[in-house]
């Protein structure tokens, strides 16, 4: 597919122009033109989800309007659900240390195809 040949800026709606600018700022120069639409859809869905959650939280707190704290809380809760990030480094170092302390297990000779116990394999019949 050809590299991003976006429509001329004049004819694009403002949102799309902004999205193109964001892509440019992040250093992405080649993309299919549909990417902008997909990003806009994602942005719309995300923002509405957050705002819905924020409305719920603010009504739970018996507030008259939705304020920044509600939105922040909504973002945080959603982030924990959908955009999980890998565990932090000290945690990884910790479990690595624990795991690396056990010596490597010896290998039993002549044991055919070496697979984990059947429970953990996908070799059972599924009918």
């Amino acid at each position: 597919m050809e590299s991003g040949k976006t429509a001329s800026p004049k004819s694009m709606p403002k949102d799309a122009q902004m999205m193109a600018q964001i892509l440019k700022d992040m250093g992405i120069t080649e993309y299919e033109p549909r990417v902008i639409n997909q990003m806009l859809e994602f942005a719309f869905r995300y923002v509405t989800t957050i705002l819905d959650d924020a409305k719920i939280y603010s009504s739970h707190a018996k507030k008259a309007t939705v304020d920044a704290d509600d939105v922040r809380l909504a973002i945080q809760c959603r982030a924990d659900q959908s955009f999980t990030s890998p565990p932090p480094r000290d945690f990884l170092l910790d479990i690595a240390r624990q795991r690396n302390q056990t010596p490597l297990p010896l290998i039993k000779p002549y044991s055919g195809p070496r697979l984990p116990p059947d429970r953990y394999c996908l070799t059972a019949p599924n009918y």
Partner: protein
Amino acid sequence: MAALAEEQTEVAVKLEPEGPPTLLPPQAGDGAGEGSGGTTNNGPNGGGGNVAASSSTGGDGGTPKPTVAVSAAAPAGAAPVPAAAPDAGAPHDRQTLLAVLQFLRQSKLREAEEALRREAGLLEEAVAGSGAPGEVDSAGAEVTSALLSRVTASAPGPAAPDPPGTGASGATVVSGSASGPAAPGKVGSVAVEDQPDVSAVLSAYNQQGDPTMYEEYYSGLKHFIECSLDCHRAELSQLFYPLFVHMYLELVYNQHENEAKSFFEKFHGDQECYYQDDLRVLSSLTKKEHMKGNETMLDFRTSKFVLRISRDSYQLLKRHLQEKQNNQIWNIVQEHLYIDIFDGMPRSKQQIDAMVGSLAGEAKREANKSKVFFGLLKEPEIEVPLDDEDEEGENEEGKPKKKKPKKDSIGSKSKKQDPNAPPQNRIPLPELKDSDKLDKIMNMKETTKRVRLGPDCLPSICFYTFLNAYQGLTAVDVTDDSSLIAGGFADSTVRVWSVTPKKLRSVKQASEDGTVRLWSLQTFTCLVGYKGHNYPVWDTQFSPYGYYFVSGGHDRVARLWATDHYQPLRIFAGHLADVNCTRFHPNSNYVATGSADRTVRLWDVLNGNCVRIFTGHKGPIHSLTFSPNGRFLATGATDGRVLLWDIGHGLMVGELKGHTDTVCSLRFSRDGEILASGSMDNTVRLWDAIKAFEDLETDDFTTATGHINLPENSQELLLGTYMTKSTPVVHLHFTRRNLVLAAGAYSPQ
């Protein structure tokens, strides 16, 4: 109340003797126990800080006090607790309170101190809540006790070669208390270097209002460095980037958005060109919340950036920074940078440029000092029934090897144990089954027909192009006997093609769903899914002897598995960003991993330790390969360079420039004479490996200081460039007879 007071008196009591300072597990509540335990495992970061604590001797002024309980907040903060952000006013009062307490203690006004503490105790306890970790208030409590212990603790001990700094962490502590849900790393990082004095606390107090001064500090330093002597300038310029990033992150973290933005605007253009990608990511981090999800940036903030500077340049810098009244830069240097000082000539810009580029600076010299067994394992003796040459038939026992297997056991010059080779049973390896033995015999027979390559005898390259893949081809592999080619695609399928009609075997597949799957080629079904990475797995490889395989992924660790264990046997953690590439050493005792943090690490399979860190690439690393004799490693990255490393000494020994785009595949020929590299710029290049590795002068001076002088001989080493028709070369393979097979997906522009 009683409990809290007791803790405090305990602190007071412990402070008296100049005894061996210990870490304070029992001190600030249960959280602290795990906390300090947690940070001791923190590798270089926490380790550095704790070393500082334990090595403290009666330094400047106050009695030496153990540090670290600050890390208490670390595990408690681990659960994103929206801490009871007390009003902004409260931290300031607490700060002043603690400063006053400190002053009283130093002036030996015990009773006044006790009285004040008793009265203030009410205030602190109200905020402290129950002190149990995990509760909403506990973050506040731990932060309070963190502040308390931070103020009362002093770490006059040097963190590595640096003499103690002053009040660096002041600002960060204040930010730690003022900002609600502190990510664990943050408060933990505060613990790293703490400073006690009243002046420190007061300066911390000042610092909060001082974000506007950051630009001045940076400009001041810039001016100083630019006016320094030429020989020192190159080394001191290394400071610019880490300082810039840390100051920017501090501004963002303390929520001074506008100052951060103007700081960035003003100085980001001065940084080296190879940091541009990082700067772009940074420019999108404008708020504290943005930082929370970005593990790489968090790690950067908490880990120390390593710089190698000669002693003379370091003295110059230190003198300059300490003579100024407000030595904020010195504080930041103390806190965030690890300066590895060496005695000797300052390095030139060229030497420095070759080695820098990674996210964590360079590697400390002692990181590359441990012994690595890079020799090859002895080939097991196998009966080779050779009909045509009968004198070989009897040499089974003992030392003398046959001529033919000798060609295979590359690297063992003597028939005795190679001193650089690991003992045979260092790690358990599977025994050879009969079928394997037959394969080995075939292998040896083929080896006799191997073409010896060299500059005048280049291999032929056979290119397999995947048509109609529409950029969906993610991975390719060829079996060792070159009979099958497997292609992995973005639609989650794996297709296997056979090049010649031959027996099928098992194959492994890494995937974005986080599992590594073992497939049987006999039944064409997936046998096992190895779950462990919860994030995309970018690369896997079987060990040269089978049975073990290693996988690396987005969660920044590489894992070692055995086919019959459903959990990983080893976890190699330490990279700051995704592990892109994992390879076994030919003797199966070491694993090399290349990562998006632009370092390559070599891990020991036996105990999971990182034995080598190689920095120098300026972009994420996408390809790795070991030389067949096990002594050298070649790596390729998005910066288009191929770097050659000597594993034994831990040094860079060569740089091959020529590609203009990411080098995504590398392979040495079977005897190590030629290195083939394939890149996204649609070319395959062949390099003369023998010439690149000859005349290595690694004398003691070089290994001690790490100075390298790379010859600019890329042009001479380049033996040939072969263009493909707009097909990036994803995979390279040398057959047993030294024919090159290359594969890629046709991607028309």
